[in-house]
């Protein structure tokens, strides 16, 4: 890993310690990727290569798994990760309009990050707070009964 800066090296070390502590490497790819995404925030190619080497599986297999599951992302997230619930309960209570408003305000599509790296936008499915539908989240903070005109003030809180 000649490419890594010191901070990155620490992250790789942490991941390696995690892998080495596993009782078996067989079948543990998804567990390792969860941990890797927890450490790095996302799964760039270099991390996938690293995982492949440590687990002794082909890189193509790692890539195949990463691209299969929507939870794994190959792009860095913004400082504030905005998620809009598009589960059925939120959909019938108008989540689409909230997502549309965010799209307009941030000028990005779901799955993208603003050029300044401040916000990323994604839609997800049922955060389990359907009673508060429609629901959006900034990081882990949940906002319930969101209407498009609340979007401005919610974004303004992110400073």
């Amino acid at each position, binding site marked *: 890993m000649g490419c890594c800066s010191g901070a990155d090296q620490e992250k790789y070390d942490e991941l390696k310690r995690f892998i080495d502590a596993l009782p078996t490497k*067989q*079948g*543990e*790819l*998804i*567990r390792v*990727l*969860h941990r890797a995404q927890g450490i790095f925030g996302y799964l760039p190619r270099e991390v996938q290569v690293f995982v492949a080497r440590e687990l002794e599986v082909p890189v193509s*297999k790692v890539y*195949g*798994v990463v691209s*299969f*599951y*929507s*939870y*794994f992302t190959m792009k860095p997230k913004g400082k504030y990760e905005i998620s809009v619930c*598009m*589960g*059925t*309960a*939120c*959909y*019938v*209570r108008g989540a689409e309009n909230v997502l549309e408003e965010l799209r307009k305000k941030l000028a990005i599509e779901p799955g993208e990050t603003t050029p300044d790296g401040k916000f990323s936008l994604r839609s*997800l*499915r*049922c*955060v*389990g*707070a*359907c*009673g*508060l*539908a429609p*629901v959006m989240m900034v990081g882990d903070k*949940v906002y*319930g009964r969101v209407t498009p005109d609340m979007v401005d003030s919610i974004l303004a809180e992110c400073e």
Partner: protein
Amino acid sequence: MEKIKTVEELKAICLARQEEEKKESVSILVCGGTGCQSSDSQKIVENLQAELAERGLEDMVEVVRTGCFGFCEKGPIVKILPDNTFYTQVKPEDAQEIVESHIMNNEKVQRLLYQDPKTGEHISDSKHMDFYKKQQRVALRNCGYIDPENIKDYIGQEGYQALAKCITRMTPEEVIEEVKKSGLRGRGGAGFPTGLKWQFARGYQAEQKYVVCNADEGDPGAFMDRSILEGDPHSIVEAMAICGYAIGASEGRVYIRAEYPLAIKRLEKAIESARECGLLGEHILGTDFCFDIQISFGAGAFVCGEETALIHSMEGNRGEPTTKPPFPAESGYWGKPTNVNNVETFANVPVIFLKGADWFSSIGTEKSKGTKVFALAGKINNVGLIEVPMGTTLREVIFDIGGGIKSGKEFKAAQTGGPSGGCLTEKDLDTPIDFDSLVAKGSMMGSGGLIVMDEDDCMPSVARFYLEFTEEESCGKCTPCRVGTKRLSELLKDITQGKGTMEHIAELKRLSQVIKDTALCGLGQTAPNPVLSTLAAFEDEYIAHVNGRCPAGKCTALLKFYIDPEKCKGCTLCARNCPVNAIEGTVRNPHSILQDKCIKCGTCMDKCKFGAIVKK
């Protein structure tokens, strides 16, 4: 806690816990489900504890953070025992008044009591609320009652005594017989008889077998399984161990979505405390039975709820289904006999052994025994988690328990079974809900999502919503599903954008049938259901779209904006805000919209302060 070595010790702890509860004359239960936690219920717990401590009451009054009470609509919920006082929409700053008024002076805080929308009366005891009257809690018996992070609370509810009974007084065959006799059928969707499934898994010889709990809960808009895991994780641990004893497995796995942090935390805690107490691990309660559980994390793929896909995912691979047979009972996790059951199925198991198979089978209909948990959501007054005996009608669920449709609108349809299910309409309201009646109506029970729609919902758009979901979630392994769902969703998109023809409708029907007949796994086979069932009940609405009209007024492309000259005051606000200058008019004279310029952005309608702009 110390290791529990015998059944007698377990029973003694249970009794001691019950005594303790009697002594603690008052307990305050605060909902710690995901819904209520999102509205700051954790802060309520902290504030209550601080208020009690300030008055030296912390030893007399216990504050318990429970799982979901079900009445999420009016959360956060706080309940006070023993008198069952039910406070709704509690805020952290209400803690002081609850302690001063209710706890110290025995005066209920009127303004926090639930107000019956029909009579306007304040109802104090939750037993008298319409929401709870028709419910019967079996799978959710401990949710909203015990502290899910305290194993003693669960043991106090006779927890782990069903396991104790099975492993000390019953043979595996007798255990399976009892489950068969109860009539329990799988709650994960298909309704397969649970006892029979266990018998199959027992029938295969192998040095290692596995018990898997399917906690993937893919239906978007459903939260039953996560609520059970958040509110009563030990019931799942106990049931998995019982299943392990019955089929001859010593290892269990829970496959759970990584997106469920709270459920994961509580399940991890439950497994850990069960190990500490010797209720998981080697020689449980001094017997020869050994069993332990590990957790595997899903990563957001709906198809992984399908059992073969789930097993591939647990093995660290892409979650693609494979054809059955072989069924997991023969060759599952690492090629070994594996029994997969849903969370709610497991949640019903311990109580069958505590109260007996006959008790269980006395609830429900002839072929569907017991209860079903539903996540009630959508355009309904009481969104929440409910549990009713099988055979309860949709009308009772929506109008009695659910409190009817929001804002006095008309009921239009209810979707059960999520993206694999179908919609039920007005004429189905009096059908008793069970596995078979829903299939007969072109829907299915599914895992329990129940979404209510009103007159403002456009059915072709709802079908499109589900098909966009299945298109995205199709794993791509087989062509009928990969290409077919894409095509269905394109056809629906055309229809909702006003580009549909009658040929589109015919093609929807034809293609749906092909996908149903030829897709490899359940995802593809059931994907056309939302299309077929909305077509069956609302074909006129599809035809209206083809003729350029959306009866529900939802599809923007088919709507036109108009200014009502009677109501327009000529304030010019709309004209100044229209991004394409599509509004003409002079000050203090009625304005009008140039239809060929208007891009239907809706800005004018939002801006007008006089309600003069309508869309139709």
